[in-house]
């Protein structure tokens, strides 16, 4: 009997600890801090806010379930890893359903260093556009990138993850991250310069 009482007390205490504990508040704060960027990232991938909201919610559930108990310092790459996995799954489903619109492939002719090299006399893309126009141009250019290039750009440049953390998030080698990012930068630059 005493053993049963101690068992029940342990479970109740465990629930209480999590419900109001520091860990719960830290998780809430972390998710609040990344959810908007996660939504924009998913929206750029799916071109649909509704689909993006569903994917972000799914990613939040998966992250809390699998990684909520991890140390808080490990959360950023793990959260983006879960979202990246959901985005990959979504793209695979679109392919299967035949609703996949053809986009530039990683093997496209973006390896030409001469074509990719910027004109150093120019101030660079986006510099001469007003905010609204520049934002629309950037969105369009990002949407046209292959998924892996876009993820490498958003995670490294926007989210600020280092190469190692980006590799964890994208489940690939650090070398692949550098390759995807290099191609993304070249493609973006070329696409955005067309707006000038």
């Amino acid at each position: 009997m005493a053993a049963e009482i101690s068992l029940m007390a342990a479970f109740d205490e465990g629930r209480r600890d999590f419900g109001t504990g520091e860990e719960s508040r830290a998780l809430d704060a972390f998710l609040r801090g990344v959810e908007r960027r996660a939504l924009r990232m998913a929206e750029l991938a799916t071109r649909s806010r509704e689909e993006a909201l569903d994917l972000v919610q799914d990613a939040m559930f998966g992250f809390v379930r699998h990684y909520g108990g991890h140390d808080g310092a490990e959360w950023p790459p793990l959260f983006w890893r879960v979202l990246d996995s959901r985005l990959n799954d979504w793209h695979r489903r679109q392919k299967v359903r035949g609703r996949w619109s053809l986009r530039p492939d990683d093997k496209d002719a973006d390896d030409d260093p001469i074509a990719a090299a910027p004109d150093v006399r120019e101030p660079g893309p986006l510099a001469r556009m007003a905010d609204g126009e520049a934002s629309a141009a950037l969105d369009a250019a990002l949407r046209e990138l292959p998924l892996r290039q876009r993820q490498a750009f958003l995670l490294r440049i926007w989210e600020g993850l280092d190469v190692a953390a980006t590799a964890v998030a994208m489940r690939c080698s650090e070398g692949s991250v550098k390759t995807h990012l290099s191609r993304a930068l070249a493609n973006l630059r070329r696409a955005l310069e067309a707006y000038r």
Partner: protein
Amino acid sequence: MNPTDDERWLERAKALLDDSADNLDAATLSRLNRARQAALATRRKRPSRWAWSAALAGAAAAVFAMAIGLHQRVAPSGAPAASLQPADIDVLSSDDDLDLAENLDFYAWLEQQPAGGPSG
């Protein structure tokens, strides 16, 4: 690529992306909030690792206690359990008594001898 040039347009790109995330409409923010709360609620329903550990330790203690109880009930009908009686404790606590116990046969024989001592 020219690093300075890259830095310039990448900073602009980051600022534009930040703006787009900061200026989401209220309905979208509300749905994000609900999604976050729902995800956190699933975590609250699960007992913590500490609770599972305590439960396992409690279960192990309960099983051990039951095993001890069963052993004590079975012992009387099986082989006689060795137990100390009060008289044994008295014997063990006194050197003289222990000597008497060890030489009981000698003292019994001595008792049966005639008063004048053994005749040869």
